[in-house]
């Protein structure tokens, strides 16, 4: 008659509440699926303790402490790197396994904490795929970057700049910035229209990304648009509409496995949702491997860490294998929006079209 508790940390309030809710729901789906498949011997119930990190350092540590106190065996979270980093300190002190389904900042795993893992590829991995595509796929000469000066997007544009300088095939002709929450980006876009770079990289989140493609169309920009996984969201297609057509995006390519279809169906049923948000997948996988680990190794942290390190998991986001830092090897591929859908387009590993 024991209950196993696992915690989540994600912004359930504030502007990122959508992604935060996706994460919570992803983990809850994992628990449901796992329990249905037999659960863990010795426990008759698995409970998800939600923590609201609110994308704020202070609140995130409080939430983390709360999870520690409620005796969770592991934590999935958090979302914003600026919340994950402070929240990981008490979790590290309490020696609780943490898997972030979203934070990509290099410092998240780069501080020597043993029990922290992450599902999505790091900023530099994504930047590498991006630059590779621009250099070898599109073979362009000039690139303009836009970011919204948030931790995530700045990480991406910085890394892209660095990679681009390495081979010096691409010239970065502009680095522009917008304010998150703004709706009008015409000033910056007009500026870029004048420069007319081959590609404009939009290092922004989905709401701004959707608006940006529309305004680019309205202004008659000729440059191609390229964006990243934060924009890879059904909402982008919905809001962007026709203007979104032809936009390239980087996103991890998962095999269209049976499990994935199954998961999507369960998720949609459980949450009465039309689509699954991208972090739902990562969170589901994080939840699943956390539960698998406990099933295999019990709740002793050392054993859990060993198991997590040494196992190759297969999840709905593809193969999962952690390196010594806790980072995952996962390549992004390039997608394109075509006929109102995301379609895989180019694979940087094989340098070939799908």
């Amino acid at each position, binding site marked *: 008659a024991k209950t196993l508790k696992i915690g989540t940390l994600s912004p359930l309030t504030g502007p990122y509440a959508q992604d935060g809710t996706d994460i919570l729901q992803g983990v809850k789906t994992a628990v449901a699926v796992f329990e249905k498949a037999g659960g863990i011997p010795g426990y008759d119930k698995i409970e998800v303790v939600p923590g609201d990190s609110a994308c704020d350092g202070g609140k995130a540590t409080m939430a983390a402490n709360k999870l520690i106190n409620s005796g969770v065996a592991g934590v999935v979270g958090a979302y914003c790197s600026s919340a994950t980093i402070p929240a990981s300190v008490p979790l590290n002190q309490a020696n609780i396994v943490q898997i972030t389904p979203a934070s990509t900042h290099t410092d998240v795993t780069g501080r020597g904490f043993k029990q922290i893992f992450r599902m999505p590829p790091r900023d530099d991995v994504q930047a590498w795929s991006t630059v590779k595509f621009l250099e070898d796929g599109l073979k362009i000469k000039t690139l303009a970057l836009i970011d919204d000066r948030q931790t995530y997007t700045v990480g991406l544009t910085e890394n892209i700049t660095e990679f681009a300088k390495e081979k010096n095939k691409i010239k970065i002709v502009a680095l522009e910035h917008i304010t998150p929450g703004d709706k*009008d980006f015409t*000033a910056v876009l007009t500026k870029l229209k004048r420069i007319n770079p081959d590609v404009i990289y939009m290092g922004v989140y989905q709401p701004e990304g959707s608006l940006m493609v529309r305004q680019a169309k309205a202004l008659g920009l000729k440059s191609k648009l390229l964006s990243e996984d934060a924009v890879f969201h059904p909402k982008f297609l919905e809001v962007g509409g026709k203007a979104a057509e032809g936009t390239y995006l980087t996103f991890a390519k998962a095999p269209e496995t049976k499990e994935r279809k199954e998961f999507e169906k369960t998720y949609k049923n459980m949450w009465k949702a039309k689509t699954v948000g991208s972090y739902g997948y990562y969170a589901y996988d994080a939840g699943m491997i956390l539960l698998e680990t406990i099933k295999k190794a019990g709740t002793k942290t050392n054993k859990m860490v060993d198991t997590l390190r040494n196992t190759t998991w297969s999840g709905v986001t593809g193969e999962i294998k952690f390196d010594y830092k806790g980072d995952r090897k996962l390549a992004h591929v390039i997608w394109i929006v075509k006929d109102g859908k995301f379609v895989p387009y180019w694979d940087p590993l094989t340098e070939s079209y799908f």
Partner: protein
Amino acid sequence: MDTASFIIQQLINALFLGSIFALIALGYTMVYGIIELINFAHGELFTAGAFIGIIVLAALQKTGFVESHFVITLILVFGMAMAYVAVLGVAIEHVAYKPLRRASRLAAILSALGMSIFLSNGMMLSQGVSDRAYPSILGIEGFSILDARITYGQVFIIVLSLLLMVALQMFVNWTKLGKAMRATAQNQTMARMLGIDIDKTIRVTFMIGPALGAAAGVMVGLYYGSVRFDMGFIYMIKAFAAAILGGIGSIPGAVLGGMIIGGVEVLWSAFLPSEWKDVTTFVVLILVLYLRPSGILGEHVSETRV
């Protein structure tokens, strides 16, 4: 794109952004002008207007009415959003501000802030946390001046907001309401003793101001193509800045302030490092207020009359 069209294009961008700021600032300044309250909920009223617009539009789209009666659709969408938000404004006034008329200004500001949080979270709960696509009925067709593009949607919105501003100015000047509002703002008790029904005056203000906000909300939704529960916040701040910059309580001031804020934002981004755009906006605001402590067109009273 040559320099001339670049500049024209950026001026168009500035004009467009400025007229939206101006419209929100107008509603804001009206409410402020009469009860001297920073109406933090104005941003939420703006958002609510956008949501009502989307509801009406979605409903009409289902019936195929939009294609057949485009103009009537627009009238309906704007009309319903403005009417509803006007009622909402009155409701807020009644519940959260009216009881505080005699209390300290800070208490009223907090009550407004509370209302803002309440409404924004309420909308989040019901309309979802992510942005919603606005049916794009305005399209992106337009025409070019040199190489600068302007869409018909933009023209429509600029013209409509100018019309609304002029209508408001005429309404306030030609009816006794304008005078009643100013008197109410300056001395409520005396205004009442002269026969002004200040409850009615305030109520009307709380209808017009939010209704203008709602119109702006619908415009933003229609043109940009999405709405979200928290989008009012940034606009509220900009409108607040615009209203103060122009001289709070002054209708032409609000328009001027909105244009300046929009202009500074766009033109700074256009020629200089864009990450400092917001810093510049605030610096301009502070500089102007430093030189003219009651705003550009604000009534300059030497309050040191002793």
